[in-house]
């Protein structure tokens, strides 16, 4: 091209082990180890067997982490997932009590979750001027409302036919089925977000929606897909929760959305979109789960556990801004 100066632009960069160790994920692993040491010191019962025994309820919650990571990277948020969990568990329980087998229970739970997610996605993509916080606040109330109507005056439903969820309680050795689902899901989602062009589109949308759109990325389709996906995963969560608690009530899934968002944020995913990684969220999830199990074992007050997790969350969000304040400001050309 004209006026070409023969300037070359570097296309490689050095990234050493040092960068990896000092990354956010590296720090989280250290915290995870510290939490486990703390747990082992505090509680004599803090061992692998007991952790595994208590884990299913938490593992179910982690399903949603992956979908939430997508949603947050996009720059959106979904606070209705706790209600979707409640609704799917309720529907699943009623289907089971009606005498249907495991297949139909699974289908009902996943189907209801998917539909709920699609409703969120539809509203979010049709009315793009509405903040998704408000949309999902609305559907949060609607979905739980429907569940409460279905649950009737008692406000709870218990499973009469425990056999219908038995396959979901299956174990491979000491490990529950949900553990494997989480593991497989983690691998898939980490690859999708980091290694595929689809994952990069999510980051592009979260970083600059307008540029993404001008660049030919199907912004609204991808948002619709992601909302549907997290709905589906909430359904999966509801299904496994039902299988581990044998019932549903009006408080099922309460606060799950905030816990899942907390895991993501603690893991370094910015709620402003375009930043963060599932790996971080995944490690953060285990930190929170281990903490809860450890503190639960020494009979610490649940509210106090929440206070501790809340403080950790705030500190984790503060650390990056504190560390950038100390770093040298970057060269600016204006």
């Amino acid at each position: 091209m004209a006026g070409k100066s023969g300037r070359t632009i570097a296309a490689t960069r050095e990234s050493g082990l040092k960068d990896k160790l000092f990354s956010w994920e590296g720090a989280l692993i250290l915290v995870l180890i510290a939490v486990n040491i703390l747990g082992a010191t505090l509680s004599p019962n803090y061992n692998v067997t007991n952790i595994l025994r208590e884990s299913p309820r938490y593992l179910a919650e982690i399903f949603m982490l992956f979908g939430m990571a997508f949603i947050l990277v996009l720059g959106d948020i979904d606070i209705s997932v706790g209600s979707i969990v409640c609704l799917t568990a309720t529907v699943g329980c009623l289907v089971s009590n009606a005498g249907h087998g495991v297949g139909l229970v699974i289908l009902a739970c996943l189907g209801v979750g998917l539909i709920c997610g699609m409703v969120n996605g539809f509203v979010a993509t049709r009315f793009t001027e509405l903040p998704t916080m408000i949309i999902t606040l609305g559907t949060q109330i609607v979905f739980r409302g429907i569940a409460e109507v279905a649950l009737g005056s008692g406000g709870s439903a218990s499973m009469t036919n425990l056999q219908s969820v038995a396959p979901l309680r299956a174990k491979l050795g000491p490990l529950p089925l949900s553990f494997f689902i989480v593991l497989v899901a983690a691998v898939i989602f980490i690859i999708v977000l980091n290694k595929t062009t689809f994952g990069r589109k999510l980051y592009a949308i979260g970083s600059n929606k307008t540029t993404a759109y001008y660049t030919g990325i199907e912004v609204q389709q991808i948002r619709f897909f992601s909302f549907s996906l997290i709905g589906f995963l909430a359904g999966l969560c509801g299904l496994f929760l039902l299988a581990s608690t044998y019932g549903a009530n009006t408080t099922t899934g309460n606060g799950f959305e905030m816990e899942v968002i907390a895991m993501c944020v603690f893991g370094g995913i910015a709620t402003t979109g375009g930043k963060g990684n599932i790996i971080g969220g995944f490690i953060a999830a285990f930190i929170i789960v281990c903490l809860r199990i450890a503190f639960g074992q020494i009979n610490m007050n649940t509210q106090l556990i929440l206070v501790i997790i809340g403080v950790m969350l705030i500190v984790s969000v503060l650390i990056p801004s504190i560390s950038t304040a100390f770093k040298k400001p970057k060269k600016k050309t204006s």
Partner: protein
Amino acid sequence: MAEDLILELKGITKIFPGVKALDNVQFQLRRGEVHALMGENGAGKSTFIKTITGVHQPEEGHIYFNGQEVSFKGTKDAQELGIAAVYQHPTSYPELTVTENIFIGHEIIKSGMIQWKEMNAEAQKLLDRLHANFKVTDEVGALTIAQQQMVEIAKALSTNAQIILLDEPTAALTANESQELYRIVDELHEAGVSVIFISHRMEDMYRLAQRVTVFRDSQYIGTYDVDGITEPELIKYMVGREITDMYPKPDVKIGEPIFELKGLSRTGYFKDVSLTVHAGEIVGLTGLVGAGRTETMEAVCGITKADAGKIILEGKELNVRKPKDAMKAGIILLPEDRQKQGLIMNWGLGVNVILPIQDELSNNGFINDKKEREISKQYLEDVDTKAVSIFDPASSLSGGNQQKVVVAKALAQKNMKLVIMDEPTKGVDVGAKAEIYAIMGELAQQGYGIILVSSEMAEVLGMSDRIYVMCKGRVTGCLDVADASQEKILELAMEQSDKEVQ
């Protein structure tokens, strides 16, 4: 000293970590003069302005105000001496009224009560002085950029500013609004206010300033009388080399028509737009701001959807419903706003370039890192981007180089047939401008059709083969460049003011 200097700066050095933003620069402002400050992007003008207004404290150097040495610890110190700045995008409070904006921070208060009547009257006086045609009770957010600038100038006057700094005041204004601004500056000049202004537009400088100071690469180059300096000389000082031909339009054999619009309309934005682009041809599309040029091109590219009309590329009618459709067909848009529409500013240059083609480069959806690096490196070098690495964030480049990245992003789309460049040199300094024109010329040579959407008359006249003029959503004329002149274009751009888009 014989000269009556209101402000003098000597040996100013300002260091940001890793970069010397100002290197031993000097500046002298005579009382009551209008003084232009020119230089390429990154030459240090903005840092210098911020030194005068007390935003930055220089590491070295002296500032004299009316012969007395002063030091600014913050913006307040500068304000107290009567130094006020008006920025390109006014930093006012859009929800507040004109009066509130003018008097914010120095309201007229008597026995603890804000004196609204008195303030409104004072504000009205200031607006009268500027011949403003809006009310003191208007919300600032509802005003045009030009009017908002007026509010800022009124605010400066209300504090009895003796020195007013204008940072690229005309960049966001239409031709008419610029004339209005010139008048205001003239009035300030007559009233004895000293004015420093930054602008990339030569015409601003020739029209307004008595003297001009040039910065280049953070250094002071010189101060010249405007009457005694020619445009090529000034460009040479700014760029550091001679630009022999600002508009290097190559001789291209114009080919077959490749692109056609027939009666394209979108209610409320543009109506019945028809135009033709031939292979190798640069077609200028001009008009006043708000004439519907960008809106038309956005419909062509699927950003919005036209209600009626045909988009024809290489004889085939396209059904453009979304941006991807246009891109697949080979219509590539370089959007007007690089930072908001063209690039992801905190991403590396390389990823920005390959973002539209990442799917084609991928292995069944998996990112092909190696290929991406090679290709982005190649296209970034092709347009001669001034960058160290493809991992440099786009935000670290100057406006001109950002534009080159946008061009590289377009070029990387191999099936490109028609390029639509919307204000490609807006906010770009003169050196990079010439390079962008050179690229444009080469694209024409390679047989692409080019639509150049621009408000800058000189560039439209300098680069186009034919020029379409739009006014109020309609094409009002098409001129061959040989017959075109600024007057003819303006006539077409402003005619039939009574007809509007239905």
